[in-house]
C-alpha cells in the first residue's frame, strides 16, 4: 500500500468498505454459491454435467413452460394494458379518472390469491361457475378449465397488466400534445397520426412495460403452483420448489435447482439488458411544456359499450375474486352453496384467535416485514449515500451489487440463502425465521437503494457545503441537513418493502420451517392440504391487511406532500 492511499483512508473509505462488506455477505456470496454449485462438480469445473441436467425431461419442460407462460402473459398483458391505457387517456370514456384508479387496484392484490379465487370459481369439476353451468344450466362439460396454460395465462394477465398500463398511460399523458397537433396541421388523419407519431413515441414505454411483465412472470411461483399442480404444468420456480422440498437436501436435487436458478438468472439478465437498450434508444424528450389537452377520440356509439367493458373487466379481476375469497372463507364446508345458513364467522375466528399455525403466520409476516423494512431502509440510506454522494473509487461496483437482486428472481435468492446459511460455512439458521429475514433483506435491498438514491440525488452537495461553511461538523451537517431531506425517501423505502414482504410467497415458500410460516406460505400450504375454506379465510384477512396498509401509505404520502 502506498502512502497516498494510507493517508486517504478516512470515513468515506470505511463506509465504503462496510457497504461492500454487507452487500457481499448478503447478496453476492449466496449468488456466487449458486453458480459454484451449478458448475463445480466433484472438485472441478464441469459444463457437460450442466448440459446433462438441462437435457432431462422435467428440466426442459419447466424451461419450455416458463417460456410459453411468460411469453403468453407478456403478449396478452401488453395488449390489455396498452388498450386500457389508451382508453383512459385518449378517448371520451365516461368516468375516466375513476377507471384509471381502478385499473391500478390489481397491482395491490397478490396474484396467487387471485389464482386461488379463480380455482374456486373455474376448476373443472368443483369450480362454482363450472358447476353452475353443468348442474343448473345443463351443460355437458365445464365452461372453462382454469387448470390449463390458457387459464394460468389469463389469471397472470389480470394481475400483471398494470405494469404496461402504468407505463403507457403515463407516457400518453406526459406526451406533448403539440407533437400530434403539428401532424394534424400537416394534413394527416387520426389513423396516420396514431400509426406514425403516437405509437412510435410511446413504443419504448410499451416495450419496457412488456419486459417488466415478462421478468415478473418468469420468476412467478404462486399462480403456476396453485393452478398447475393438478395437470402437471410447472415452470422453473415451481420446479425449484419441488426439488428443494420433496427431496430435501439431496445433492442431485440441489444441483438441479442451482442449474435451473442459473438459467433463470441469465434469462432475467437478458430481459433487463433488453429493457435498458429499449430505454436508452427510445429516450425521446416528449414531455410537454405548456399543456393543452390532447385531442380526445370521440367514441360516439361505442362510449357506453366501452364503459361496460371496463366495468366488466374490473368486476372480473377485482370484485368477483375478492368476493369469492371472503364468501368461501365463511363457508362451513368447501363446496356448499353460498346461502346464509351455510355461512359462518367461525372460520375467521378460528384462524385469527384459535389456530396457532395461522395466527403465527400473521405474526411472522408482520414482524418479518417490519424487521426487513427497517434494516433495509437504514442500510439502504447509508449505501446510497456512499453511491450518490461520496467520491470513492469503485462505487459503480457497489451500485451493481445493490441493484443485482432487483432482477434476480425470488426463488434464486432463496436458493442462494439456503446454500450459504445452512451450516456449510459455520452458521446454520435453516428452518428459523432468521434465514427468511436474510433473504428478504437481500431481495428488497434494491428497492431501498432506488428510493433513497432518488431522494439523495435531490440533496445538492452545496447544501452540505453550506452547513460546513456555517461551522457545522460533518456529523451535524448529516443530522441536521441531509437526514431531514431524505426522510421522505426513507419512508417510501420502508413501505415499498413492508407491503410486498407482508404477502411474500416465492421466497418464503422455499425457506419456511414448521413454526416459521408466513401468511403467503400458510395460505398456499392450507390450500395444498385441501383446507380450502381456511385458506380462503386467511387470504381474506391478508387482503384486508394489504388494503389497510395501502390506504395508510396514501394518507401518509399525501399528508407529506401537502405540508
Amino acid at each position, binding site marked *: 500500500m502506498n502512502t497516498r492511499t494510507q493517508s486517504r483512508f478516512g470515513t468515506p473509505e470505511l463506509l465504503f468498505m462496510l457497504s461492500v462488506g454487507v452487500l457481499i455477505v448478503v447478496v453476492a456470496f449466496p449468488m456466487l454459491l449458486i453458480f459454484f454449485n451449478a458448475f463445480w462438480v466433484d472438485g472441478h469445473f464441469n459444463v457437460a454435467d450442466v448440459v446433462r441436467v438441462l437435457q432431462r425431461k422435467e428440466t426442459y419442460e419447466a424451461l419450455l413452460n416458463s417460456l410459453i407462460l411468460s411469453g403468453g402473459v407478456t403478449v396478452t398483458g401488453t395488449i390489455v394494458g396498452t388498450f386500457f391505457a389508451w382508453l383512459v387517456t385518449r378517448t371520451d370514456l365516461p368516468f375516466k379518472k375513476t377507471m384509471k384508479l381502478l385499473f391500478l387496484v390489481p397491482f395491490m392484490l397478490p396474484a396467487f390469491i387471485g389464482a386461488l379465487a379463480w380455482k374456486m370459481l373455474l376448476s373443472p369439476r368443483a369450480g362454482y361457475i363450472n358447476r353452475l353451468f353443468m348442474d343448473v344450466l345443463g351443460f355437458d362439460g365445464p365452461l372453462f378449465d382454469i387448470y390449463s396454460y390458457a387459464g394460468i395465462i389469463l389469471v397472470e394477465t389480470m394481475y400483471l397488466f398494470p405494469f404496461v398500463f402504468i407505463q403507457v398511460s403515463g407516457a400518453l399523458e406526459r406526451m406533448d400534445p*403539440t407533437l400530434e397537433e403539428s401532424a*394534424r396541421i400537416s394534413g394527416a388523419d387520426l389513423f396516420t397520426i396514431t400509426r406514425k407519431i403516437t405509437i412510435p413515441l410511446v413504443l419504448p414505454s410499451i416495450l419496457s412495460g412488456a419486459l417488466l411483465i415478462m421478468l415478473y412472470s418468469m420468476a412467478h411461483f404462486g399462480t403456476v403452483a396453485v393452478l398447475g399442480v393438478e395437470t402437471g404444468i410447472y415452470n422453473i420456480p415451481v420446479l425449484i420448489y419441488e426439488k428443494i422440498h420433496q427431496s430435501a437436501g439431496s445433492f442431485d436435487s440441489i444441483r438441479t435447482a442451482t442449474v435451473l436458478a442459473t438459467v433463470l438468472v441469465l434469462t432475467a439478465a437478458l430481459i433487463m439488458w433488453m429493457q435498458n437498450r429499449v430505454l436508452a434508444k427510445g429516450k425521446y424528450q416528449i414531455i410537454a411544456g405548456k399543456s393543452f389537452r390532447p385531442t380526445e377520440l370521440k367514441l360516439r356509439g361505442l362510449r357506453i359499450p366501452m364503459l361496460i367493458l371496463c366495468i366488466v373487466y374490473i368486476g372480473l379481476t377485482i370484485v368477483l375474486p375478492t368476493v369469492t375469497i371472503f364468501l368461501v372463507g365463511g363457508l362451513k364446508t368447501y363446496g356448499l352453496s353460498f346461502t346464509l345458513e351455510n355461512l359462518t364467522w367461525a372460520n375467521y375466528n378460528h384462524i385469527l384467535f384459535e389456530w396457532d399455525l395461522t395466527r403465527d403466520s400473521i405474526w411472522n409476516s408482520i414482524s418479518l416485514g417490519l424487521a426487513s423494512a427497517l434494516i433495509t431502509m437504514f442500510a439502504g440510506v447509508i449505501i446510497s449515500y456512499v453511491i450518490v454522494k461520496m467520491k470513492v473509487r469503485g462505487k459503480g461496483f457497489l451500485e451493481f451489487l445493490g441493484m443485482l437482486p432487483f432482477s434476480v428472481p425470488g426463488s434464486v435468492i432463496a436458493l442462494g440463502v439456503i446454500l450459504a446459511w445452512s451450516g456449510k460455512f459455520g452458521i446454520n439458521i435453516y428452518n428459523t425465521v432468521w434465514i427468511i429475514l436474510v433473504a428478504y433483506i437481500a431481495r428488497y435491498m434494491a428497492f431501498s437503494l432506488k428510493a433513497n438514491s432518488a431522494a439523495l440525488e435531490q440533496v445538492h452537495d452545496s447544501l452540505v457545503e453550506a452547513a460546513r461553511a456555517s461551522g457545522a461538523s460533518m456529523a451535524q451537517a448529516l443530522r441536521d441537513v441531509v437526514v431531514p431531506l431524505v426522510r421522505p425517501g426513507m419512508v417510501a423505502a420502508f413501505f415499498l418493502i413492508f407491503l410486498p414482504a407482508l404477502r411474500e410467497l416465492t421466497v418464503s415458500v422455499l425457506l419456511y420451517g414448521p413454526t416459521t410460516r408466513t401468511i403467503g406460505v400458510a395460505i398456499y400450504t392450507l390450500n395444498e392440504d385441501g383446507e380450502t375454506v381456511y385458506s380462503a379465510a386467511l387470504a381474506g384477512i391478508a387482503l384486508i391487511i394489504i388494503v389497510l396498509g395501502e390506504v395508510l401509505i396514501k394518507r401518509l404520502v399525501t399528508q407529506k406532500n401537502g405540508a
Partner: protein
Amino acid sequence: MNSVRIEADNIAFSYGEPRVLRDINLSIEACELFAVVGPSGSGKTTLLRVLAGLEQPSHGSIRLNGVDVRDIPVAGRNVGMVFQNFALWPHMTVFENIAFGHPSAQSSGTETVEARIEKLLAILDITETRAARPAQLSIGQQQRVALARALVHEPRLLLLDDPFSNVEQELRKQMRHDLRTLQRKLGITTILVTHALEDALSIADRLAVVVHGTIRQIGSPTAIYDFPNSIDVARFVGVENFLAGTLRHVERQMIEFASPDIGTLRWPMRDRPAEGPSVLSIRPHALHLCPIDSFRDGRYSWIEGDVVASEFLGEVVRYRIAIGNAELSVKQPHYLGATATPAGTQVLIGFDPSRARIFPAGQNADMSTPE
C-alpha cells in the same frame, strides 16, 4: 404564392367557465406580417389555435379570403404552424419531419415534394442537417426545420406561436430578421404570437395587443408604442409612470391637470380628452433629471423630488424619485465615467407635458397592480 386575407368576426372561446377569448375582431391583409402581443396568460396562443382550427370557437366566424372555414377541418385549411417548442418529431429525421403528411404532398404541379424540400432546406441554410434527428440540432436549426415543415405544403397562412421564446437574445435578433426577410420573399400572410414586445415592434407590419382575452388596440408598431389607447396597453408597451389627478379644459386648446403630488400643469392639446378624474402617464425616459439648483427652462414643467433608489442598467440608469406620496421612474442615459446620483439627493424633474398621455380614471380596475 397564393396568400390569403383573413377575417375574424366576434370570436369567443372558453374551456369551461372563465372565457379565454371574447369579442375578437380582426382583419389581416394578404401578405401582411401581423403580430399578436400581450402578457402571458392573455389568450394570444389560444387565439392562434382557434385560427389554425385546433380549437373550435364557441362563438363567431373566421373567413379566409371571404370563405367561412367553420366546417373545414385542420387538415383542409392549408395553414402552416410553428409551435412554441417546435414540436419536431424526435423519432424522425429532419427530412422525414418536413415530408410528413399531406395527401396532396405527392406532387404539386411540376415540382416534386423532394425537390421542394431541398429548395426549402437550401433557403433556410440547413441542407446539411437533412439526415439528422431533431435532438442533434441547435435551437436555431430546430426552429428553421419547424419553419420548413410549416412551409413545405405551400400554406396560404403561416402561424407562429412564440417561436423565439426559447432562444437567447443575440440569436433571437438574427432569427427574427431572417424570418422577416423570408416572409417578404415568399409573400405569405403571417401571424406571429409573442410575449416579447421587441420582436413584434421590430418586424411586424401591424400588431394587436391582447389583454385578458380581448383585443385592446390594433395599429402599426409606432402607433401602439407612442399612442397606447388604455392604461393596460400603456403598461404593456413600457410606460411606467401613472399619476392620478383631475383634468379640466381651460381656454381654447388648453388643458389643466391637477394632482396632489405634482401640483397643477397646463399645456395645449388639440383633441382634448373629457374632463374629470384622470390618469397622466409618461415614459421613464421622457423625464429629465437635473440638479436642484438648475435653471428651470421654460419649455419644461418642473417638479422637485428626492432620489429613493438608483439602478444601473448599462445604457441607462433608472431612478426612483419620490414626489409627494407618489414615486416616479426616471431613465437617464449613462455616459462614460458618470456616477449615479446617490439616494437622498434632492433633484428637479423636468418634462414636456405634451409627451404625456391622459386616460380617464377608473378605466381599468387593475391600474394599481404591478407588472
